[in-house]
């Protein structure tokens, strides 16, 4: 087992990985950009090294600097988290050359599955069902036009190098094709440093169902069942759950075996996710392999009892999987909501700034994987994910109710977040009914305007504001002392009386 691991990431996933390392008795090195000195992952790690200025390209994407830091701090392995360098085959290869263990797949497999076009070819050859679309990367912009005509609109533009919705565009008619290609390529370039994009047939309102897979370095492969991630906005998953309301045991088994075959064919090791689209007739199509720890991995952990980060680390250190496929079972139901710094009432624009106050929901069956704290700054430079709220309960409806309540208990003041939107979403009758497809948001939340505030809550807000004003008015006649006392933690704020009593 490793003695020390460097984590080449930031935010909630780095905090998650640090916790796993601490439990396993492994020291952690955090790296951070100049914008992140005060980030939670820097505080939590055993060691922390600044690796450059705020823009990711100069810090979190700076391969040389990160590898050099690993050497300098004597870290034996690098965990890339998700995003940034997680699916960068060059980085994995550099690590291999520099004798640092990359906690993820081998660079060859990573290169294959990272190249969406080549992996489509490989899978088709192996008899895995795929969606109609380009089988090679276009040399010329006109090829896109021809291919789109061949497979028929609507088509989907996808980044060859990445996932997470970055660079994706749906094109409904030919005149939209060129501007969408341009935007997609720019986004792909910015997100992955590679502007290659390709086309696929766009399926109408499919479900997005993916299978979690673990493969050790000794040829053992298991799947840990599915996650349904159909609820997406801008091709970005926002709510995930398992089990999928759409799968029957036979279909689940068949898809699981297919997922394992994809991994086998790719020569893939460590944790990975095989993504499928499931159409209305319950036909499934291979989409891609996400060659990393997924944002939504906790729902699998809560239903199978397997800690995926522990497994990633064990596998990378050369250990064999300690369980067989037969030993794995799904228990209960788990739902995850991603909490983004976005304004749902203003076209989901990112919202940076200061988290004035945070209260994380806690309680039985509630898990919060977060990267923020009261008083932290959310910088403009990185992905707007703040945290993930995950619940587990005996069945889907209980989990859904628990999630609604947990979202209600969740307080983030000072920046806009998606919490209120998610609460409405999880409360929607069609979500309750399990009718989740990739068109869910557009269909049911195209015109979301938030809930009307209740009269009583308005009244209480006014009362609390007036009360708070009374207190902050006091200082106008003795301002200094009172302000000081309010800050002082040793003042009994609770017993503090109003009106000079």
């Amino acid at each position, binding site marked *: 087992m490793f003695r020390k691991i460097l984590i080449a990431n930031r935010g909630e996933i780095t905090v998650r990985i640090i916790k796993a390392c601490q439990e396993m008795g492994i020291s952690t090195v955090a790296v951070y950009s100049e914008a992140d000195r005060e980030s939670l992952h820097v505080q939590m790690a055993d060691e922390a090294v600044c690796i450059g200025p705020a823009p990711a390209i100069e810090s979190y994407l700076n391969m040389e600097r990160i590898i050099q830091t690993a050497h300098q701090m004597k870290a034996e392995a690098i965990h890339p988290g998700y995003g940034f360098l997680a699916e960068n085959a060059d980085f994995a290869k550099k690590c291999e050359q520099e004798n640092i263990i990359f906690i993820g797949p081998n660079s060859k497999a990573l290169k294959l599955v990272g190249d969406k076009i080549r992996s489509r070819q490989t899978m088709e050859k192996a008899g895995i069902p795929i969606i109609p679309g380009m089988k090679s990367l276009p040399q010329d912009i006109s090829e896109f036009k021809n291919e789109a005509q061949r497979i028929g609109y609507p088509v989907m533009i996808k980044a060859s190098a990445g996932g997470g919705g*970055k660079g994706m565009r749906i094109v409904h008619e030919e005149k939209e094709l060129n501007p969408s290609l341009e*935007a997609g390529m*720019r*986004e792909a370039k*910015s*997100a992955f440093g590679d502007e290659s994009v390709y086309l696929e047939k766009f399926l109408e309102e499919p479900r997005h169902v993916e299978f979690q897979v673990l493969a050790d370095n000794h040829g053992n492969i298991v799947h840990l069942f599915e996650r349904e991630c159909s609820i997406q906005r*801008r091709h970005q998953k926002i709510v995930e759950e398992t089990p999928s309301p759409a799968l029957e045991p036979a279909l689940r088994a068949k898809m699981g075996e297919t997922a394992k075959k994809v991994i086998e064919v790719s020569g893939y090791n460590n944790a990975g996710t095989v993504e499928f689209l499931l159409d209305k007739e319950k036909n499934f199509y291979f989409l891609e392999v996400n060659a990393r720890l997924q944002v939504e991995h906790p729902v699998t952990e809560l239903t199978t009892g397997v800690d995926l980060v522990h497994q990633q680390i064990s596998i990378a250190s050369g250990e064999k999987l300690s369980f067989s496929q037969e030993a794995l079972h799904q228990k209960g139901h788990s739902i995850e909501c991603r909490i983004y*710094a976005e304004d749902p009432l*203003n*076209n989901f*624009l*990112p*919202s*940076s700034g*200061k988290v*004035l*106050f945070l*209260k994380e929901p806690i309680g039985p069956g509630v898990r919060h994987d977060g990267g923020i704290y*009261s008083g932290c700054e959310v910088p*403009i*430079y*990185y*992905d*707007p994910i703040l945290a993930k709220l995950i619940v587990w309960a005996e069945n889907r409806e209980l989990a859904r109710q628990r999630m609604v309540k947990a*979202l*209600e*208990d*969740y*307080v983030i*003041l*000072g920046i806009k977040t998606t919490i*209120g939107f998610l*609460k409405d979403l999880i409360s929607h009758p069609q979500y309750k009914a399990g009718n989740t497809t990739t068109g869910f948001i557009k269909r049911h939340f195209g015109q979301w305007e938030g*809930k009307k*505030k*209740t009269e*009583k*809550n*308005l*009244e*209480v*807000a*006014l*009362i*609390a*504001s*007036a*009360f*708070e*004003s*009374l*207190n902050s*008015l006091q200082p106008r006649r003795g301002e200094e002392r009172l302000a000081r006392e*309010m*800050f002082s933690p040793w003042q009994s*704020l*609770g017993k*503090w009386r*109003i*009106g000079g009593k």
Partner: protein
Amino acid sequence: MDFEFIIDNKLHKISLEKKEDCFVFSDGEKTQEVNIKFISPHVISVLIEGRSYQVYWARDKEKRYLSLEGEEIVVQEPSASPEGIEKREEKSREDELKVKAPMPGKVIKINVSENEKVRKNQTLAIVEAMKMENELKSTIDGYVKKIFISQGELVDSEKPLIELELKE
């Protein structure tokens, strides 16, 4: 003491007075006793007729952010904004012609030039923040009067980036 607060652009006039161990609240129509306590610097507990409310609050400049029962409410004081509400509404019509960045970010593309004719919803520029591209669209059919930015510039959400002019 009397207070004026603005919530969702609506002005509320209320009063709150201390009375022995509790407070008396009035909104002009009804008057009731309430029990209010500071629980910790960011939490106020309010009891009204047995109902218990846990109010989380924080302040950022002139804005109070409150959260209760899972609902977020932004409360402002009229004095905090230099103009009254009505004036602000007038001003917002004027503001419509000034295109601002929806959030702080980086200008990655400017699609128009000064004096160019634009249609409503036409993309004027693209600003990137947190890895998302956001298109700034024209709010009117008209002309580009002035462009205040250049490609690659970091911009804030306060200042206008492009000024438009109505078609005569």
